[in-house]
């Protein structure tokens, strides 16, 4: 079984979000980058298939050379080979088209991407790859089992879960639940040493066009002070929620 895991290189979840150049660019100053958490759950599930089913696991990222530290980390965790498509990731359809091109040539059985990246939150790359490659697709995937060429996936729906089956090849948009938080692997020294020798192939983009374009950013308006209510005076809270905030 051949698995491809799509990796986004994103600011750490604790990052302060600021913008520069007239609010047109994200301020990367002092920002630590990590594997997108939704992708890391998928990568960890892929490692499980590697151990149990003997799968080979490739990872892919669309981005400049600065994303290679994140790709090396996935190799240290246990991925076999990495692919970097050497172009700035501008928007979802461009990224999806670049990855779809690799998917179509790579003979993959399973493609795992995060349900969304935690920076631009588009939530569309896995679905777009599925549409471009005409493959079965399950989003918000919180459970995945594979026997032979049959996959059983659990999808989180509003208010519950749905179990679906599909024949490989399959694309999933993964999230927490695919594995538990405690299953996530921290690279050990041996993994880090081995990662240096694993292939990281840089491919030139096919030059996919974009269909959207970010003009500028804005930060939320600063919030006012919290109104404190005494624990002895719950009536006041109910009064404020009813008459001032008008939410009950």
């Amino acid at each position, binding site marked *: 079984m051949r698995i491809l895991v799509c990796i986004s290189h994103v600011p750490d979840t604790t990052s302060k979000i600021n913008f520069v150049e007239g609010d047109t660019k994200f301020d990367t100053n002092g920002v630590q980058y990590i594997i997108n958490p939704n992708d890391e759950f998928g990568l960890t599930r892929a490692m499980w298939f590697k151990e149990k089913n003997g799968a080979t696991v490739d990872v892919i990222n669309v981005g400049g050379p600065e994303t290679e530290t994140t790709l090396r980390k996935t190799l240290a965790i246990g991925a076999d080979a990495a692919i970097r498509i050497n172009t700035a990731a501008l928007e979802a359809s461009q990224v999806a088209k670049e990855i779809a091109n690799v998917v179509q040539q790579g003979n993959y059985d399973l493609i795992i991407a995060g349900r969304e990246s935690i920076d631009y939150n588009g939530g569309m790359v896995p679905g777009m790859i599925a549409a471009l490659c005409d493959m079965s697709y399950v989003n918000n995937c919180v459970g995945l089992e594979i026997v032979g060429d049959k996959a059983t996936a659990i999808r989180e729906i509003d208010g519950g879960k749905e179990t679906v089956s599909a024949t490989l090849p399959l694309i999933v948009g993964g999230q927490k639940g695919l594995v538990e938080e405690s299953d996530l692997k921290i690279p050990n020294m041996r993994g880090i040493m081995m990662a240096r020798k694993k292939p990281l192939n840089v491919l030139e983009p096919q030059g996919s066009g974009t269909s959207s374009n970010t003009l500028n950013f*804005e930060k939320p308006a600063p919030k006012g002070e919290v109104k404190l209510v005494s624990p002895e005076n719950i009536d006041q809270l109910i009064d404020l929620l009813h008459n001032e905030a008008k939410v009950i």
Partner: protein
Amino acid sequence: MSILVYTETDQGKFKKGAFEVASYGKAVADQIGCDVFAVSFNANSPESLGTYGVSKVLNTSYEGSFDAKLFADAIKQAALQVGAKVVIVSSSADSRFLSPLLAISLDAGYATNVVALPSNLSPFTVKRAVFTNKAFSYTEITSDVKLIGVSNNAFGLVENSVACSVEAFDVSFSAPGVQVESVDKASDKVTIADADVVVSGGRGLKGPENWHMIEDLAQVLGAATACSKPVSDMGWRPHSEHVGQTGKPVASNLYIAIGVSGAIQHLAGINSSKVKVVINSDPEAPFFKAADYGIVGDAFEVVPTLIEKLKAFKADA
């Protein structure tokens, strides 16, 4: 030139998000000067969309489970039939599932998490929540057909009655993408996505055995229940209740956090909620900086009193 909204149903009834995308679609149509069409599956009373400004509903009957590929294909056929240049969907799990497929098949630029009406029609520009609600971006959609995913509860329901006709829409259905084996869904519970009020608990509740307080408070308020990341990681509550950056976003009118300290990732996930209340014994908890109202106090004393007083308040109302 027209606008098409995908109005989602559950057991034949329109979801709240259906009325919201209809309201949003009508407002965009008024900016542009055109009509709003809707496409729905198995709607019991499609004409009710007229209340929110839809002039014509293409209602199709379909026996079977939701399937993203099949539904996306049907919506595409509706978009082509009415000549839609702007297609609008909600942020429900199903709409977010099918929309990337729809975007590719319509060759449409797709903007998700849209929180306001287009700020400009030329170039067509929408405001999106990004960095998990820590910022907004103004994004230009450059394709001929535009696909907009409206963030839950960002626009609200706006009544705008127009005459509404209903057409039985004959779709040539494609093969489903996957086979649905089973659905496990609590029909009597409000979902986090649809809830006007969400009550959330954190580690301060000390253990899953104390969750009856959260559930009782939620019941009085008709609210959905949620939790912080550590609570779901420890297995006190299911992952589906985890709200925050790697969990679910919450955009309710009222969010009540009990014993939640307010880590930056949690606050990002609930930032779109309109009014936030925090109850925490630690006055230094970061949540107090993000909240509108706060009580510094012991949840085990405050919450039972709050439940009793809210019951009395609801009984009087």
